[in-house]
């Protein structure tokens, strides 16, 4: 049995420039439309939900600063994912690396904070967070570069291990990280010297500008330097890299460690910024997973990540406030993220191929 028509994929020799912008925007719109269906079916008003989300995410002054504040960690986890993606490596354990970065920088803030001044503490906390993130990816990175073990499942499995560590340190009574004498388990606040001040009364911290610069630096690193050149060669054709005497194992290892460090840095930014303590709620927020979506939506372009990161932060802040004000499930936000990514992936096909439907014709009349 044959369908009356079939799809024909014609490889585009040149991708029209406008599609680079149209595809992500259309993906967001299409995902919002899917959201309408689900909201409607479950008895919420889609229009009210979205207008509130937009209001709280972008269209008010606190909304904007909240969004930019939220985007800080998201951009960080997104560049972590995108950096590994540059070499076709899939670090999908950014979530766990972020936990470990948070854990280590909390330790630094608690243990070293009282003894060191702010201008020393901030870099120290961030470096320790980054190192912890790198450490958390060390085993997947090592076995990937030496044995070729797929990093996809290994990095992800370690996220579950990391989550158990976080829970352990928060819920165990007498834990170093736990605030004493509280009814509900709660993390202990790090020393003031390990924290930055926000701008005025907003939730926006200077770390936002740091991650923007970081994203631009990574862009330069990949596009303009010899290290980036090697990454491009290896990602495109490992055999060409070998031919040219480029050590792919070492580069693989370093790229993954840097990716892990960037995710860990995201955890540290939560400590020096808005959170300041080990927070059990972190495992429900999925910053690491969101980073993957943001990176994919930006097609792993570091400067585009800044834009898509802010967009996503808006969706999230809007969604969170919605949860508080109207009791719409916050999870609509996560679902939308997944839907956006699915649509963006589908849209990729339109960038690569000109898709036509043709009637199945029979040669003989």
């Amino acid at each position, binding site marked *: 049995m044959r369908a009356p028509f079939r*799809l024909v*994929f014609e490889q585009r020799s040149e991708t029209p420039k406008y599609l680079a912008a149209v595809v992500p925007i259309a993906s967001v719109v299409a995902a919002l439309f899917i959201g309408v269906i*689900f909201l409607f079916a*479950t008895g919420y008003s889609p229009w009210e939900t979205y207008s509130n989300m937009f209001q709280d995410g972008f269209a008010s002054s606190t909304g904007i600063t909240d969004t930019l504040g939220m985007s800080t960690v998201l951009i960080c986890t997104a560049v972590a994912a995108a950096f590994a993606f540059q070499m076709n490596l*899939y670090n*999908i354990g950014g979530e766990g690396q972020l936990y470990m970065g948070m854990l280590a920088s909390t330790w630094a803030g608690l243990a070293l904070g009282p003894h060191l001044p702010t201008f020393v503490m901030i870099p120290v906390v961030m470096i320790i967070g980054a190192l912890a993130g790198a450490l958390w990816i060390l*085993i997947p990175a090592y*076995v990937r570069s030496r*044995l*070729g*073990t*797929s990093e*996809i*499942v*290994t990095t*992800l*499995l*370690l996220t*579950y*291990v990391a989550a*158990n*560590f976080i*829970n*352990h340190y928060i*819920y*165990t009574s007498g834990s170093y990280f736990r605030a004493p004498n509280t009814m509900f388990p709660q993390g202990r606040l790090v020393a003031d010297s390990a924290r930055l001040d926000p701008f005025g009364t907003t939730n926006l911290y200077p770390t936002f500008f740091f991650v923007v610069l970081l994203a631009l630096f990574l862009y330069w690193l990949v596009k303009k330097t010899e290290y980036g050149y090697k990454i491009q060669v290896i990602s495109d054709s490992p055999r060409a890299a070998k031919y040219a005497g480029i050590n792919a194992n070492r580069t693989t290892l370093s790229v993954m460690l840097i990716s892990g460090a960037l995710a860990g840095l995201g955890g540290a930014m939560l400590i020096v910024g808005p959170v300041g303590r080990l927070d059990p709620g972190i495992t*429900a927020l*999925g910053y690491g*997973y969101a980073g*993957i*979506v943001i990176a*994919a939506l930006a097609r792993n372009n570091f400067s585009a990540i800044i834009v898509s990161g802010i967009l996503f932060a808006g969706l999230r802040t809007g969604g969170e406030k919605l949860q508080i004000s109207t009791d719409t*499930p916050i*999870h*609509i*936000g*996560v*679902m*939308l*993220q*997944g*839907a956006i*990514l*699915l649509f963006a*992936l*589908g849209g*990729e*096909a339109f960038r*690569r*191929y000109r898709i036509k439907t043709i009637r199945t014709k029979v040669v003989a009349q």
Partner: protein
Amino acid sequence: MNDNIWILAIANSVTLATTLMFGSLGALFTERAGVLNLGVEGVLLSSAISSFLAADASGSVWVGLAVGAIVGALLTCIHAGLAVILRANQIVSGLALVIFGTGLANFLGKPAEGKDVVTKLKPITFGPLTDIPILGPVLFKHDIITYLAIALAIGASWYLFRSRPGLELRATGDDPATVDAQGLSVANIRIRYTVFGGLLMGLGGSWLMLAQSAAWHQSATTNGIGWIALALVVFAGWRPMRLIFGAVLFGFTLQLPFTLQAEQIDAISADYTKMLPYVATLVALVALSRPSRVNALGAPRALGTPFVRDER
């Protein structure tokens, strides 16, 4: 400590292996066709909550299982469409499915929060067989779906290696161009098995919810079992019979914290024993990727690569 705890542990391993078997059998069929579906975790979660809601509303565990399986198939349709028809990156598509499925499950699960699973699947009793020491609890104290999982794995093995469609399925995963040259539709075969795989995963998620869980715990309901199932396929070398063995093995690591807790053994913090399944899976994956093992494993050669007929 006594003998009972070990018998209990092994019996629980067989029980917990059920979801793993469904999840990884689903992934195995998908991967044998050359499609990589990393979305297992998302599919498990969505089908789990769907089965809960359906069973709760209808009062029938069977309706729950059926709805869960259908939701699993529907969700993987998205992946099949993206990966096979639109030739998208299968890894990213699978991840998107995890994220979407998790969000969807938590969104749908809002009304289920705080409710107990009332409509539950009950174990079958085999009368005197169940009372046989050791063998009784290990083999004859499970519900029908657990036996179905084992039967499916055995059937899958026969289907793959002894039937015409099985031959075509294996060929599609290994060398789609050859299948295409024979005039068989690669896309058709791939979509079919990907969606069938989703159906199995959906059944696994529903079983986990309706036979094993006390209540809906959001993402913690499956807690990464989908990822372990994916690793299990590698562990089993893409062979269904080995998968039964592997599932029981990994099932052991999954049930350990609960069995220890039930027996009030707390020499090691439960937070650490809960890490065991993930660490064990990681170790297994690393051990299997020694170069000498890789070829013997038999991963489908075209796994994860979209098929494009070479048109100049």
